[in-house]
Structure formats: C-alpha cells, structure tokens
C-alpha cells in the first residue's frame, strides 16, 4: 500500500524516502510502510502520519526524530507527527522491489500473511524459508523471535549459516 500524499506534498514524501529504517537500513521508512500520510498546508505546516510496525518497536522514537530533523534540513520547519493505528501495519504492504532489497541485504523476505491457521499448530516450526545467501531450502526454523521484533531466526544446513527472516505479520 502506497502512502497517501496530499496535494503538493510529493517533495515532502521524497525527503522521507531518504530516511532509512534504523533497524533495517536496506529499506526506507516510506517503502517499509511506516509513513501513512503526508500533508503540506499552504501555511507551511507539514503533517506526517506514522504507524508503528510492532507495538513495542523501540525504533519509533528515533524514526520520529529523524523525520523532524530531515524535514527541517529541507526547509520544513513546522512539522506535526501523528501516530495512527488503523489499518494495522502488515508486511503485505512491502512491494516486490522492497522484498528484493531485503534479500540482497541478507534477510529472507516475508511470505504472505496467513490469517486462518490453528493458534497452536506445533507444525509451524517445520516451516521452511529459502536461505537468502545461497538460495537453499535445506533450512531449519530456529525461533519465531529474532534480534528485532520483526525478525525470525533460521539456520541453513547447506551454507551452515544462521539467517534472519522478516516475518509475515
């Protein structure tokens, strides 16, 4: 889903596209879907709507500071940030191009979200994700929780490397 930019706000959106996500710098905050809306009023006030990826994402504070700083540098002095919760962020918003960038960065991209599955399947641990380094499917799911809230941990039995997956949510 592409962020909504109000009339004349495209240059603002361009500035925001220059801000990498602090935890996944391969993607900028617009293509990650954190920026939900941008508005530029005739009196110069810029409103940016952001949505958190995860409820407790510790990077949100930093992202908000970077938005204000980047806009100031580009001459937008009056910035208002608004947090929106609905619709809830989903990895389904990532474009194919963004997923390719993740893979090139060494993180397995998310599959499609599956909404209807048993709550405690057990079998979910047999889920196989292709290794972003060598492409092998001879991999093992190690943990649903990784170095950041958005990643799971897998292990590739062929290149013998652990790797992370941007989990579908």
């Amino acid at each position, binding site marked *: 889903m592409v962020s909504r930019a109000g009339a004349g706000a495209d240059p603002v959106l361009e500035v925001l596209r220059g801000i990498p996500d602090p935890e996944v710098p391969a993607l900028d905050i617009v293509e990650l879907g954190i920026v939900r809306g941008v508005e530029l009023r005739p009196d110069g006030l810029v409103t940016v709507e952001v949505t958190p990826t995860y409820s407790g994402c510790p990077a949100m504070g930093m992202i908000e500071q970077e938005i204000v700083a980047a806009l100031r540098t580009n001459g937008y002095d009056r910035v208002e940030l608004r947090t929106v919760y609905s619709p809830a962020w989903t990895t389904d918003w990532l474009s194919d191009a963004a997923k390719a960038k993740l893979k090139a960065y060494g993180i397995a991209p998310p599959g499609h979200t599956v909404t209807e599955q048993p*709550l*405690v399947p057990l079998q979910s641990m047999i889920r196989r994700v292709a290794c972003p380094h060598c492409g092998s499917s001879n991999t093992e799911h190690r943990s649903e929780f990784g170095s950041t809230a958005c990643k799971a941990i897998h292990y590739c039995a062929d290149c013998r490397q652990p790797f992370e997956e941007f989990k579908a949510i």
Partner: protein
Amino acid sequence: MSQPRPASRSKEEALFEYLLRLGDDRLILGHRLSEWCGHGPMLEEDIALANVALDLIGQATHFLRVAGQVEGKGRDEDALAYFRDAIDYRNLNLVELPNGDYGRTIVRQFLFDAWSVLLLGRLQGAAHPELAGIAAKAYKEARYHVRHSGEWVIRLGDGTEESHRRTQAALDELWPYTGELFETDEVDRVLAGAISPDPAALEPSWREIVSDVVRRATLTLPAEGHMHTGGRRGRHTEHLGHLLSEMQILARSHPGAAW
C-alpha cells in the same frame, strides 16, 4: 482500603477503568518477562521472552496513553505507569505472580495468551477507533505469543519426567488465578456491546484452546475449586508491590528525568 465507589459510573469513567485494565495486564506481565532477560534457559528463549515483553510493554504504552486522554487530567502513560501505587493498579493477579522456573513462566504466559488473543480479536471491532486500532495491532502479536507459549507447554509437558512434573505443578498452582479472566463487573456492563465483549462469553473458547494444548502436552486439567479475585478492584497479592518498587524507583527518584 479505597473508598467505596459510587453505585454507577459514567461511560468515560468506565472506559478509563477498562483501558487501565488492558494496559496494566500487559505492563505488569511485560515487566515480569523482562526479568528473564539475560537469564533465559537458552539464547533463543531469552530473546523470545524479551521480544514478547517488548510487545506487551508497547501495547501497554498505547492503552495507557489513551487512558490518560480519556481521564482528561493531564496524566500520560508514564505518569500512569510510574506514579500509581499497587492499590490503583487494575491488572489480573495472574500476571503479577513471580516467574518461578521456566515451566511456570510459560504456563502463566499460555493461560494469559490464550485469553488475550480472544479478547483482542473481539476488541478489533470496538466502537472506539483508537482502542480498536491498538487492539488490531496487538492481536497480530498475540497470535505469535500464544503459538510460542502453547508450543512450549506441549514440549515441556510431553518432555522428560522432570519437565512434566514441573509443568503440571505450575498448572495446578496457577489455575486458581484464571477465574478472574472471566469475571464481569459494572465496568463491563456500562461498556457492554459497544466496547467490552462479555468476559464470560470468552470462557468456552479459552477452555477449548487450553484443553487442547493440555491434552497434547499429556497434562491434566486441574479440578474446579476456589478462584482468587480482586485484581480489577486493586486487591493484589504481595508480589505486585515488590515489582512496582523496582519498576518505579528510577522515575520516582528522579522525577521528569529523560535519557
């Protein structure tokens, strides 16, 4: 003892109470889980519990922020988290109980997660856009949480003789704290329909999820008996005060400090 409450509450007062319940459950459980950070039985689980703690504390932040706005007395999420005493906390007694061993932490987590995922699922449709939005996000996270805790209950219950024994003991010990999940009081009645799903209506689905996992874990569901109560009215176990003293000391020693 707190003052007796007036017989009826306005919708705003009830909504404030309800948001405190949602926030406090997650704040206290998140804090408990964070105590495992650096002490987990294996690296993956250490990371997993810290992740779940982060989700829960994040959810609490959002619920408490809205609670402060609804109350309209200028209290933000930090004021609510750090400057209320145990008697003003509205969390379930279940979530404040000490971690114990890993089995006990996991059983407590599973009993909560199985309930939380059902509640948040319903709250997505609440007639309060902000509450519904926070719930919709939290619901997705809760699905991960219940999968994690549920699968560990199965592994530990159906594991070694020792892990089975400890997990069964934890289930027996924690079971009397689950009655509180399904109590209905005036706050729920004031918000019934538009916001709060009937707590009692969640019980059959919760029992289904719990019984299924308990069976697969080769454990035995405890017999029905006395259920503890009081958390929603500020009557807590002695453990909450100790937890709060650790959680709140920095903010209270250095009011207004930022870092």
